[in-house]
């Protein structure tokens, strides 16, 4: 099993979800996060007080999938979240040791 974590532009969330559903992905977790990478921040001005905002809003999605599905999911996320501009985000893939569905007690691939 693999856990795929992707940081993407917030407005790309629906595209990514639509790209993953046909692959058989049963669910995913979404968080609103902030961070910085190569994309520079913005400047906000309130009555002459300028604030440089370094941390930009992003969406983090986490999806756990069977190992054989991982590569397709990564490709789908990259295709759907791509704009070609700085700030598109990143995808990370991690090994998962164990998974349990709390309701039924099913484990590993059955729990995904």
């Amino acid at each position, binding site marked *: 099993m693999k856990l795929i974590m992707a940081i993407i532009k917030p407005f790309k969330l629906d595209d990514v979800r639509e790209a993953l559903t046909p692959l058989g992905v049963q669910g995913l977790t979404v968080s609103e996060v902030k961070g910085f990478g190569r994309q520079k921040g913005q400047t*906000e*001005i*309130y*009555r*002459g*007080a300028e*604030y440089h*905002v370094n941390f930009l809003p992003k969406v983090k999605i986490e999806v756990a999938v069977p190992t054989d599905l991982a590569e397709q999911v990564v490709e789908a996320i990259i295709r759907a979240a791509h704009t070609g501009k700085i700030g598109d985000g990143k995808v990370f893939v991690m090994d998962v040791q164990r998974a349990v569905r709390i309701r039924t007690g099913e484990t590993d691939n059955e729990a995904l």
Partner: protein
Amino acid sequence: MMRMLRGVLPALLLCLALAAPALAQPAPAPAQGQPNAAETSSSSATSAAPAAAAPAAPAAEPKVDTGDTAWMLSSTALVLLMTIPGLALFYAGMVRKKNVLATMMQSFSITALVTVLWYVCGYSLAFTNGNPYVGDFSRVLLNGIWDGWDKPFNFGAGTDNATQLTIPETVYVMFQMTFAIITPALIAGAFADRLKFSALLIFIGLWSVLIYSPIAHWVWSPIGWVNALGAADFAGGTVVHINAGVAGLVCALVLGKRLGYGHDNMAPYNLAYAVMGASLLWVGWFGFNAGSAVGANGRAGMAMLATQAATAAATLAWAFAEWIAKGKPSVLGAASGAVAGLVAITPASGFVLPGPAIIIGIAAGVICFWSATSLKHLLGYDDSLDAFGVHGVGGIVGALLTGVFAYGPLSGTSDHPEGVNIGGVHQLTVQCYAVLATLVYSGIGSFILLKITDLLVGLRVKEEEEREGLDVVLHGERLG
């Protein structure tokens, strides 16, 4: 420092007192907007006009005018709306999330505190005869207001300048109370994010009784000494805005900067609150300015006309100035511009025509933009929400331009149909005296009251409390 100022204050007051009669004009009629003879004579045929105008009516004692009273009851509600929720939202929208509730609580609790003090002695000290500098204690706890409760109020009865109003005194008490509430509530913009709640109650309580009431008396009482100079302040440019603005500046200087000022991100939590607040202020201000005609009459109409013109012009002026200087016309800028325009037209409404009102609005928008965005940083004080930058500076702009643009006939009386306040060098000079007197008294007085409060309970919350946020530290609550 304090001892020195305590010594200087009486001397300054004495100087002002001595200067007053020397500067006074030969026989000025009540000059400001509140109790002006012009509108009472036009709106209350029963009170002043001879019986010939209405042959059937006997020249009996004056009666309450129901139209005037209806408008003043409505205006009272409108002006209260300016503080809660108007100002509460305007200020709360500009602070960080951790201080939103505490900032709203400031407006809300000041409303309650000043109301009680107004009944106890504030009204009495401001609007009874007393002497030219302060009223007396004859209306303590509104004593005797029930005598003639259904008769129109004879403001300044027993003096040479008594003004026969057409509304009951109860309504006048309430209308003026809403002004007494909003003035200290405006100061809160300067000490937002760092003042203790106990210090707020003590400082504002003392300030309302010892600073606001006397200045209201100077300017609006028929025997007030600034009134006798011939100063024109229709709805409270000096009494409300310069007064609150200067007190705010002193608060900002005495309290010092917020922790992390100039370093931390202090971006507003929710500017939508601020825009809603500014909009409520705009609407409520019709009660403030048009209500200051103390009647439903032509002067109220002129005041409303001028108010809308100046506010709109100032909104555009601030937005365009910001667009040119900073690259973008901000929403907060437009809302701030509207408030600056409202502030500046306050003393002038009821004295000026629509054209000059637009000029006053443009001047206020551009100058207040400069004071709130550049002057503050230049001088290095932290007036958190620009109580001085908008209300102090806008009030001064308005008070002085009233002296330039006052259109005589609007302040005409039967004795002086050409008007008692006519724009020109003389009126401008008188306006300068009124501004200066307010600056000096409010500035020094606020400083002393802050020092007293500091001795009693201390002014600022502790450093870690300020970091944590006033909502939780002072009130034990938090926004979601």
